[in-house]
């Protein structure tokens, strides 16, 4: 908080003294209080990306580099052309701070916000995905409370709006105890025409500015500056800054907006989110190179006596701003009337390049339209944390329990066990598109009705790996999430990310951000995956316990599958089939679940990524798909490949005879071989008659493939080739896998 002098009065603002001086310089005078409020919000970290922007320049040119990318970073959502005349929009963002204070409404309005971002691209939102982070559940009522109500908030909002939640991931780690992460992603589908109809700018003077949706109230005023501050005990007092969601109104807004866009009379579209009306009107006109005259008192308010400052900065949910062609105003308003939505024509665009807001006769805002988006940027210092050397040098102790016990503990651990408790609460089928449903595959697969195309989507990253090495960890996240969509038979098409980090003013925290961005950028350029959007959430630090969250650059990948017969699923299909592993296992136990669950260690050597090997494996898999050689595929993730094999046994109650004698060519210890989380490996099920063909192709593609076992009908896994025999009962494993979260949550 800074105190500045405005016409002789002291005013509290979030901006720095230097930024206040820059505002005066831009306007050539002192700002009015309403103008100052606008600058204060629009120049906050959350809106302006002032710390991250210099670094995010790396991501900038997706639209130029890839001909199928229709909208890239800097837009409300990334948009790609998937053929057959269809456009796919997607975006991910954070709603961490509101959810940490008020989990139910925080999460719900997060969903509300991301739906609006997709909707304002002119397309129908068709799927949601939510990666989440909490403290450990066991013995921690606070974490249980956050987890329960975040899930309920997502479920109630998503279910009511009729958008299926088709995927997500959850990790539990001490560092998220008081600063949980709630990231929300949405995918939208429309025709390319729909998308082209509704750009997020007002480029034509003389159009009407129409506000539609919920009423403008006092909720959420200054929600933005609040999200750019570190959480403190004082945050409880910020509760009124958390907005309240109304999914019913949102559903009406979706239908009314899509129908309005179809009339052809909407020339521009923008949602009202952070920064409210100030943000929407200035971005519409600023980006469109026009100006506008807004009459404030036309805005429908939810409570009497609101000041111009409050009306302009309110972050009341469920509102959209439309730029409407004059000749189509009546038609568009009729659509809003049909849906019984409140609306108001609040102004008109002009060619002044100035945003003028009148409160009756009084001119309360009179600023160049582009000024609000011209925040200063900061070059933040970065420094590798000193504690990393010590962490990376940590050695793995010998386990004190036998391997069977270790595997059982792992399969029942919070980060590996089934998340069915979560996805049962989400309507993941509404829309009749969900072909591979929650829990059935590595990614969610949706059909595009009327075509033979399917999209696959997955989201996640490993925060423990990123904590030890953000550069390799971010790359590893990409390998894993791309691996998810590839395992289902898709080719990765594009990526969006959501960067969750600590205070950027602390060099160690900024270093994590900087290295993660470099990792994502290097990987995506080498493997030709366009980055079409991103969101940054800083200040994820808990000042009470003085801990920063583990770096979490969430990654979402959307992939495309041509033809239903090319969708691959995870469960084993037939006993007698071969079990093959693609990729070698290295001694990479750093940040593994094994270290954390069995040894209470956070350190060690984390996985690293060799892009060339990864690409060879992907191409090899595409070739196997083309030749119909794969019966099942599951990428190896937390806990190592035996967990992967067990998950493949569960659905059809199969077992597996595993023999690792020929696979341990790196001479690893038993625990290193079984539990390393080396990224980029897959377990595939193939027919024994195809083995020769597969080995030949592997040689051609220079990929390491080893047969490690056979699927069997008896539900047990036996493992040979280690220093001890391991036998696991699948029914018991499944019981452990399924019961952990219900046992912790159902009191």
């Amino acid at each position, binding site marked *: 908080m800074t105190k500045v002098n405005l016409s002789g009065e002291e005013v509290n603002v979030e901006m720095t003294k230097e930024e206040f001086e820059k505002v005066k310089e831009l306007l050539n005078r002192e700002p009015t209080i309403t103008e100052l409020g606008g600058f204060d919000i629009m120049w906050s970290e959350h809106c302006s990306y002032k710390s991250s922007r210099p670094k995010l320049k790396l991501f900038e040119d997706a639209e130029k580099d890839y001909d199928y990318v229709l909208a890239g970073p800097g837009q409300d959502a990334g948009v790609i052309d998937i053929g057959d005349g269809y456009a796919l929009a997607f975006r991910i963002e954070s709603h961490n701070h509101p959810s940490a204070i008020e989990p139910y409404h925080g999460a719900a309005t997060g969903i509300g916000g991301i739906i609006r971002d997709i909707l304002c691209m002119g397309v129908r939102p068709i799927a949601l995905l939510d990666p989440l982070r909490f403290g450990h559940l066991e013995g921690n009522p606070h974490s249980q409370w956050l987890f329960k109500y975040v899930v309920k908030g997502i479920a109630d909002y998503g279910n009511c709006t009729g958008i299926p939640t088709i995927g997500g991931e959850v990790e539990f780690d001490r560092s998220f105890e008081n600063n949980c992460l709630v990231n929300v992603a949405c995918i939208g589908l429309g025709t390319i025409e729909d998308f082209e109809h509704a750009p997020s700018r007002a480029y034509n003077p003389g159009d009407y500015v129409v506000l539609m949706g919920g009423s403008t109230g006092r909720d959420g005023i200054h929600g933005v500056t609040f999200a750019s501050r570190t959480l403190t005990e004082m945050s409880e007092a910020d509760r009124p800054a958390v907005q309240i969601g109304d999914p019913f109104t949102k559903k*009406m807004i979706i239908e009314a907006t899509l129908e309005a866009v179809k009339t052809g009379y909407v020339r521009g579209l923008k949602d009202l989110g952070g920064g409210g009306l100030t943000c929407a009107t200035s971005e519409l006109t600023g980006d469109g190179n026009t100006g506008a005259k807004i009459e404030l008192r036309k805005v429908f308010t939810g409570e009497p006596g609101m000041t111009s400052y409050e009306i302009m900065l309110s972050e009341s949910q469920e509102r959209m701003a439309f730029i409407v062609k004059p000749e189509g105003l009546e038609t568009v308003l009729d659509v809003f009337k049909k849906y019984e939505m409140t609306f108001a024509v609040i102004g008109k665009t002009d060619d002044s390049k100035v945003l003028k807001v009148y409160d009756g006769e009084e001119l309360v805002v009179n600023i160049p339209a582009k000024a609000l988006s011209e925040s200063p940027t900061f070059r933040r210092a970065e420094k590798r944390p000193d504690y990393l050397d010590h962490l990376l040098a940590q050695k793995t102790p010998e386990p004190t329990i036998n391997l069977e016990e270790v595997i059982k503990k792992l399969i029942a651990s919070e980060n590996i066990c089934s998340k069915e408790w979560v*996805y*049962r*609460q989400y*309507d993941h*089928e509404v829309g*009749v598109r969900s072909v591979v449903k929650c829990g059935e595959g590595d990614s969610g697969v949706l059909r595009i*009705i009327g075509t033979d195309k399917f999209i696959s989507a997955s989201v996640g990253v490993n925060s423990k790996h990123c904590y030890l090495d953000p550069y390799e960890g971010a790359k590893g996240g990409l390998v894993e999430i791309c691996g998810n969509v590839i395992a289902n038979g898709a080719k990765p098409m594009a990526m969006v990310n959501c960067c969750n980090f600590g205070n950027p003013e602390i060099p160690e925290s900024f270093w994590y951000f900087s290295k993660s961005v470099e990792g994502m950028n290097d990987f995506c350029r080498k493997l030709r995956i366009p980055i079409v959007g991103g969101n940054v959430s800083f200040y994820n630090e808990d000042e009470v316990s003085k801990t920063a969250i583990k770096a979490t650059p969430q990654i979402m990948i959307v992939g495309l599958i041509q033809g239903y017969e090319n969708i691959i699923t995870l469960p084993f299909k037939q006993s007698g089939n071969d079990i093959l592993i693609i990729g070698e296992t290295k001694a990479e136990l750093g940040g593994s679940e094994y270290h954390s669950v069995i040894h209470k260690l956070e350190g060690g050597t984390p996985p690293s990524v060799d892009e060339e090997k990864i690409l060879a494996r992907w191409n090899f898999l595409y070739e196997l798909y083309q030749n119909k050689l794969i019966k099942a595929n599951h990428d190896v993730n937390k806990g190592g490949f035996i967990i992967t094999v067990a998950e493949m046994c569960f659905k059809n109650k199969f077992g597996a005879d595993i023999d690792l004698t020929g696979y341990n060519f790196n001479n690893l210890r038993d625990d290193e071989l079984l539990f390393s989380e080396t990224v980029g490996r897959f377990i595939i099920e193939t027919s024994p008659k195809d083995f020769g063909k597969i080995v030949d192709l592997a040689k051609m593609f220079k990929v390491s493939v080893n047969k490690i076992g056979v699927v069997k009908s008896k539900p047990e896994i036996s493992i040979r080739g280690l220093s001890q025999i391991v036998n696991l009962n699948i029914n018991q494993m499944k019981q452990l896998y399924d019961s952990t979260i219900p046992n912790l949550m159902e009191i």
Partner: protein
Amino acid sequence: MTIKIAVIQFPGANCDLDAVHVLNDVIGVETSLVWHNYFKEADFDGVVLPGGFSFGDYLRAGIIAAHSPALDEARVMLKDGRPIIGICNGFQILIEAEFLPGALLQNESLKFICKWVNIKVINNKTAFTHKMKQNEVLAIPIAHGEGRYFTDNLKELEENDQVVFRYSTETGNYESAANPNGSLDNIAGICNLEQNCIGLMPHPERASEAILSPKGTEHGRLFFDSMVEFIKRRIR
């Protein structure tokens, strides 16, 4: 004469487009999405009240929609024997509008549940089930928070053959584990005395295409095929 079916769009309905898709593209019967205030019974041979959260389920699920003019229109259809189906929220609306008896309470688990379940056909004589076999077990998904059926008049309901579906295991047993929401006597769907109107919590429109079903079944089609056949017989 071509058959015309209406799917009524209440504010907050969200399975409306799914029902239209299945009727038009899968079953191949002319179906229109009709905004609730614009619905006129004279134009249609049958009607679907789709799932969703009509009017946000504020006050109580289905109760506000039950007072929509669309229900007055539908009441005319109810009386002259045209087929009416309420799916999920549509079932809740039919109960609140007193087309069907009983009540739908919050799930026993107090949570929303989305999963594939099995239901057993008890009455295969209704407008929507006459193409099913008695005691046939159907695979079909549910997705609701308030679907626990209750009535204080179970005996009468049974005597009048108004119980149409019960939740069961895949082999047709009524174990408690097969009852997803705690419904009385495992009841998943019921009909009116005349058997031209049914309501059920599961979603037949989500179970009408093999591509969406875990086991490749298309049991949901039986509802709509029965409906079309029923209309054809009435017209003849």
